[in-house]
């Protein structure tokens, strides 16, 4: 079982330290957060078959003045490696808190610290090292093989064939089963060609024989077409078929899943399995089934799976504690933050907003109104930025999350912030009961934005907009709820006044109140009757605000909106990992 990974100077990672204590690990995080690099690093340090060809591109920033170092700490060692003649005396210890100690003391779990070093001459060496000492001794490929590392789902078509080194060949008893089948088939094909009816090939052969006679080449008895005998015929062409259909004709998902199941079957003993993009080629239902199966295997304690995922379904299907959030700071430091088991209600947060884990910045709206409102704003800003050829919210990785009201929303914001996502929370300011939890989320670093004291979003908008804007809000409410409903509820708030039409100025006259009183009544009704408490209605409300925000620049409403914009589109561009992406493309 992989317990720790340390990387220096490898591809997009200048430095990374990752302590692992679970058997099922799903790496999540935004694109280019170096998840796959982590997986590749594990493969290089543990895989005996890798015979890796290193290139200059494997050095961080193409800087060839320093070595690439990948250090993996592996526990649950197989008996054979623990022998005195093998690596028994090279074991170290890993304490429950993940720190390494030189000796496998009784309080620690015994482990091997395996270090791959690649010099600028591109020479790799694998050694077992001990913490706090210069002790190092080589570890052979045969010894690394016993650690049981596999990369599942890789080269899926290979494992559907009886090819050399395929899992299917591994499942086949006896080493020459496949080749004797191929040889038999080849012999039959040879007779079939000889037995074929006379065809144009025979005429060509006869012509050749005649010509050879003129040259005195040899005295042939009968030249005819035939298949050259094969001796060690490759069994690569021998592939699984369903009925008459070769599996190579099936979809990618089926091929990957079948290959994975064959690899799983062919494995024996404890293993460390890596999978890149577990969801690749799988529909939601097959993905969920696969994950449940893998979870069952890891729960049994015999193997460990480290996977990367970009799929919300994976996030939803797994337990929150199975997830590890990967961030890169753009300056080469990668952090791997396991979801702590004691993070409150984190499961609900992930289930409700699986997408957010795959983004870079999280914008939490308190409830449906806020989320819709924020979406409306983002759409507007995106349109502006598109015209100006600037990065859009999605490309930046800003993700909207519905906080589902009250303290749940502060909780969620807190969860994301604690997992390393810069998080912003938009929350009403009319409920004193949540002040405490708002303060708590601020304390962990959430950027909290609230309206003027006492105001909900509706209050802030209705009190701030011009009369024209106010009318647009009412018109929208009428569109949503119908004129009668709006008239009746506003009239009731005003103390049982009968209102006619949908014109706010006319309502003022009918009820004989000033504009301020009218605004208060409309706002109170809008909040109480939840006129806009749906995401689409919040979005429409945002459109009204956008259409009327000219001249309101110095109001608290616009100030908060400005802050939200600054969060959604950070002035300093997110560090580019394009180099990393390009290099990957070259390989």
């Amino acid at each position, binding site marked *: 079982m992989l317990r720790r990974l340390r990387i220096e100077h490898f591809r997009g990672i200048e430095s990374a330290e990752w302590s692992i204590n679970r058997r099922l690990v799903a790496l999540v995080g935004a694109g280019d957060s170096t998840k796959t690099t982590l997986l590749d690093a594990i493969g290089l340090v543990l895989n005996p078959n890798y015979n890796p060809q290193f290139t200059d591109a494997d050095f961080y920033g193409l800087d060839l003045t320093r070595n690439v170092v990948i250090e993996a700490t592996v526990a649950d060692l197989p008996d054979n490696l623990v022998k*005195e*003649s093998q690596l028994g005396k090279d*074991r170290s210890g890993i304490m429950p808190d993940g720190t390494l*100690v030189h*000796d*496998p003391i009784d309080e620690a779990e015994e482990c091997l610290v395996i270090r791959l070093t690649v010099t600028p001459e591109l020479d790799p060496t694998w050694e077992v090292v001990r913490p706090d000492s210069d*002790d190092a001794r080589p570890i052979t490929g045969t010894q690394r093989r016993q650690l049981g590392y596999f990369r599942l789902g890789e080269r899926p078509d290979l494992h559907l064939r009886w090819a050399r080194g395929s899992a299917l060949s591994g499942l086949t008893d006896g080493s020459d089963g496949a080749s004797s089948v191929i040889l038999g088939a080849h012999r039959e094909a040879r007779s079939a060609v000889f037995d074929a009816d006379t065809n144009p090939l025979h005429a060509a052969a006869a012509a050749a024989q005649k010509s050879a006679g003129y040259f005195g080449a040899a005295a042939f008895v009968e030249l005819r077409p035939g298949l050259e005998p094969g001796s060690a015929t490759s069994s690569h062409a021998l592939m699984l078929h369903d009925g008459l259909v070769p599996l190579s004709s099936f979809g990618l998902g089926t091929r990957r899943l079948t290959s994975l199941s064959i690899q799983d079957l062919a494995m024996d003993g404890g293993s460390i399995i890596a999978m890149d993009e577990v969801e690749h080629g799988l529909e939601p239902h097959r993905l969920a089934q696969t994950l449940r199966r893998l979870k069952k295997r890891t729960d049994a304690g015999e193997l460990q799976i480290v996977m990367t995922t970009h799929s919300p379904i994976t996030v939803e299907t797994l337990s929150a504690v199975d997830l590890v959030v990967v961030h890169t700071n753009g300056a080469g430091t990668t952090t791997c933050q396991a979801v702590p088991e004691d993070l409150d209600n984190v499961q609900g947060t992930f289930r409700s907003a699986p997408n957010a884990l795959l983004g870079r910045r999280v914008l939490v709206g308190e409830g449906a109104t806020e989320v819709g409102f924020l979406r409306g704003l983002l759409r507007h800003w995106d349109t502006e930025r598109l015209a100006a050829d600037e990065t859009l919210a999605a490309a930046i990785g800003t993700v909207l999350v519905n906080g589902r009201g009250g303290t749940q929303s502060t909780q969620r914001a807190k969860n994301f912030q604690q997992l390393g996502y810069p998080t912003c929370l938009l929350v009403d300011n009319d409920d004193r009961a949540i002040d405490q939890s708002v303060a708590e989320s601020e304390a962990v670093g959430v950027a909290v934005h609230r309206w003027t004291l006492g105001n909900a979003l509706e209050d802030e908008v209705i009190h701030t907009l011009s009369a024209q804007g106010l009318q647009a809000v009412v018109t929208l409410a009428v569109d949503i709820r119908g004129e009668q409903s709006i008239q009746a509820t506003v009239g009731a708030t005003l103390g049982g006044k009968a209102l006619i039409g949908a014109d706010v100025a006319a309502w003022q006259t009918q009820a004989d109140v000033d504009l301020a009183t009218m605004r208060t009544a409309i706002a109170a009704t809008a909040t109480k009757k939840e006129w806009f408490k749906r995401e689409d209605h919040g979005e429409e409300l945002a459109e009204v605000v956008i259409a009327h925000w000219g001249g309101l620049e110095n109001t608290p409403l616009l100030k908060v909106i400005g802050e939200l914009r600054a969060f959604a589109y950070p002035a300093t561009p997110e560090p580019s990992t394009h180099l990393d992406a390009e290099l990957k493309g070259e390989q």
Partner: protein
Amino acid sequence: MSNDPPLQGAVQTLLSTLPGSVALPAGAGKTELIAAAVAEVAAQGGTSLVLTHTHAGVDALRRRMKKFGVDHTQVVVRTIDSWSYNLIAHFPSLAELVVPAAPDWSKVAEYHRAAARAVSTRAVRRMLEVSYSNLFIDEYQDCLTDQHTLALELAQVLPTAVLGDPLQGLFNFGKNRPADWSADVVANFPAVDIDYRPRRWDPDHQELGAWLVAIRENLLNGRPIDLTSAPVTWVPRRDARTFVNTCYAALDLDGTIAVLGQFRPDCVNAASSLGGSYSVMEAIDEKVSVTLATRIDTKGGAEVAQAVVEFAIGSTAGLATHIPAAKRRQLGEGKSFVTRREDLRPAYEAVVQVRSDPTPAAVRIALDLLGRLPGVTIHCREAWFEVMRSVATAISDECTVSEALQRTRNHTRAAGRSPTTRVVSRPLLVKGLEYDHVIILNPVKYTAQELYVALTRGSKSVTVISDTIVLPAAHMALPSAAAPR
């Protein structure tokens, strides 16, 4: 050999009653029994750890394993000391001891205690369990209490057999007490009775072999040994030089000869009297060389020069006449040190050079010239060459001569000493070794164990030089008596 029925029976008996101890007389096939047991374990798919005390013992065991066709992956043969050191060097926390990169064997007792601590930990136990199915410890009569403690820890994890002969327990008196066979060993490793035959004297000297078994009872019980009808040659000791003729006469015999004294000085005297035809075997930790090395490293010119000359005289015959006592005194007092003899002059000048500049290089030249003076024979060859080699190492590696000596000795420990056909030695040093002929010089002061070891070293002939044909009762040296502190 492996199909020798009594041996197979003994192997079955031993392996079926572990933990256990086997006491076997000298030459009764103890090594053979271990090898056969290891072969049987290997045939069952197991792997054995075999520990003994000396590198010579390791060599002998390894050769025997090869003879039995034991695959090298199925047996590990090590000395207790080096196995312990290697273990604790890897696990300082488990051993609760940090050791230097090169072992310091003067602290070996600490190493054993540290190894015992390491073996009691979970991680080392697991390593032992998955590595070995059986443990055999040879020459157990030589186990000191700290080694015995380690053996007890090991026996908690591995089925363990210990083998030895209490009558061959020889020890230097020191802080560390040997384990007592009846009190410590048998109590933890119940005695296993094995039928034996003194094979070493097969087929031509069976009478000697039988006699050596027969006298065990007398030796164990402190009774005199009568040589009158014994299959050994008795030479009456007329004076202190009786042995000279006997030893010169023995030079005509085929094969290896060991002349056995009791302490180093009487061995050196004997070798000196024999004019270099026999070489003195040294203990691996002999102090003479250590003292000289320390002087070269730390003292002034006059003292070093004097020490070099004294060492050279003590290790050779014929040199004292070239450098009379008066000259040696002058050397030490810083006075003129010259000779009129042309052939001696280069050596004298080299010694003076040491006095004016006491470097290892000067010492090397001086010793080299002294050793090659006319009429000089070196009989303490081991000490001589050990010093020459250490001085050379000190020059090439730019270290002190003491450090170089320690390295030289570690190398000798690992590689074994070069075999010598004719040696003057002591029971303590020849234990476990075998010679064709043995000449014992005046054994009256021997302990019962020393006498037994001395008598059992010769496979073809044994000669005893003593005042009387009945050797007076020799006392058993008891472990408890060997613990003065």
